[in-house]
């Protein structure tokens, strides 16, 4: 099978003071182009480690990740990351933060084209009005929008999101989830998102990858979400199919992979 993104028998062992620690084992996952995948699991299960391996920020001890048939080696803008805590550079304006990525990824385009592309991506996340503000002057949700714009501006093959809405309040989070769904419907990005929010996973994903608890965490089950798109959170609240999917994820997390005591 020739998947767009293909994780083959990935495992990772970290050296620690108390000897080697196996965080991941035998991760196999095939992602199709344009698919929205969520990785869900209890904290400490290594879901962020999977994402960092795909991003190239960590090297797998075993196995490998293939993107469009090529092995992933080191980080690169073809796998743009939206970090949990936005990671905007505080000395640059919103515009300059996105511009940094655009200048790097599109050196062939002229100045006006690059400017248009920066503004286009800021418009996608509804942040063009704050282009000249600094990160310290905008709210947490706005920062995360800019982080998403920066990642989108790289036109990545895969968009990696590491608990992108984890630090936001419920209402802001809902707004951003809607924005991400809109953007994904428009651009057809392939997305891999880490989350610990069951509703978020069901609402956004085509498939939910549920991970077992570490050490030696692996994929416990994969749940296909066949809810029709576009999805509306209010309508879904009364949809039995939505609730059935939600219960399946909850059942996996709380019955089959009971929360480890120390993470409570």
């Amino acid at each position, binding site marked *: 099978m020739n998947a767009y993104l293909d994780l083959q028998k990935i495992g990772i062992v970290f050296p620690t003071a108390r000897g080697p620690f196996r965080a991941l084992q035998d991760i196999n996952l095939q992602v199709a182009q344009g698919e929205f995948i969520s990785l869900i699991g209890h904290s400490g299960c290594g879901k962020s480690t999977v994402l960092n391996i795909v*991003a*190239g*920020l960590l090297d797998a001890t075993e196995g490998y990740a293939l993107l469009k048939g090529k092995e992933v080696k*080191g*980080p*690169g*803008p073809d*796998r*743009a*990351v939206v*970090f949990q*805590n936005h*990671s905007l*550079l*505080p*000395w*640059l304006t919103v515009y300059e933060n996105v511009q*940094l*990525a655009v200048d*790097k*990824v599109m050196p062939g385009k002229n100045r006006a084209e690059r400017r248009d592309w920066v503004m286009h991506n800021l418009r996608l996340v509804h942040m063009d009005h704050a282009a000249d503000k*600094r990160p*310290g002057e*905008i*709210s*947490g*949700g706005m920062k995360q929008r800019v982080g998403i714009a920066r990642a989108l501006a*790289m036109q990545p093959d895969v968009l990696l999101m590491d608990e992108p809405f984890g*630090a*936001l*309040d*419920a*209402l*802001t989070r809902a707004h951003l989830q809607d924005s991400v769904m809109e953007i994904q419907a428009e651009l057809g990005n392939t997305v891999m998102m880490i989350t610990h929010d069951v509703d978020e996973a069901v609402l956004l994903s085509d498939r939910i990858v549920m991970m077992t608890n570490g050490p030696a965490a692996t994929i416990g089950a994969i749940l296909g979400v066949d809810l029709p798109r576009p999805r509306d959170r209010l309508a879904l609240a009364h949809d039995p199919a939505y609730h059935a999917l939600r219960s399946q994820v909850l059942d996996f997390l709380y019955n089959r992979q009971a929360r480890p005591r120390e993470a409570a």
Partner: protein
Amino acid sequence: MHAQALPLDGPVVEAAANAAVASQPPAIAPAVPPGGEPAAHRRPPNRERNRRIALTLLLPLLTFLAVLAGWSALQKTVAPELPTPAATWTHATSVLADPFYENGPNDMGIGWQLLYSLGRVGAGFGLAALVGIPLGFLMGMSVNVQRAFSPLIQILRPVSPLAWLPIGLLVFKAVDPSAIFVIFITCIWPMILNTAAGVKAIPQDYMNVAAVLKLGKFELARRILFPATLPYVVTGMRLSLGVAWMVIVAAEMLTGGIGIGFWVWDEWNNLNVPSIILAIAIIGLVGIALDLVMGLAQSRLDYTKR
């Protein structure tokens, strides 16, 4: 003298405050019945402000008056050799009336003395920045450079820079370069250590951004390392300039020639005590001015203070 200030405290607190704001669901307007009681208990803001301004002016004035009274009392009782505040004031006005006179190289106005001292501090400070900041960057970026230099710096840092003065005189065989050398030694340790601390304090997130963007070494330094470290560098410069201004007075007392430190010592030899009191006040005021300049630079260059 190497107080590692943590300028990044600012944004952390700010970010926390932002997060707190963001995590509050939009408040529903408080249900005040129409015609309900307005905030009548609050003081008018103008009166509050005027009171605050009056106190910030009045209280220090009282302190200065108390010091003058104490000085007068001391002079009248246990230390009759001290000049009176009034005599000092008269002397000060005559010294300050002509700060830039020149009666040969050994008798120049207090303005010249200050300018010479400032020039030495500026030269030593500038040279220390040229050497210390790049070295601090290298130490922050490379564990091996850190390993190589850290023990040497740790040994030399607690040494009073004045201990280096004889070495300077021996090597340079002249007063000016020796004093500049002492200021260089004074300034270089805080600059190295703060710069290195700044590079090490760069959040891993910024480095991850750089990695995903595949920034080259030069771009990494220009776009990420340098701006992220700048607040620390400026803090190091501000600290070292403050200490340098203290050290130059002592260094010039030893080297002689010209300079505010030499002037203090010369006036002591003439038993001209009012001049010494005047010098103390002026050295203090120039010190404040230098710190204000660095503070201004800090607020312009430090993204955490904008």
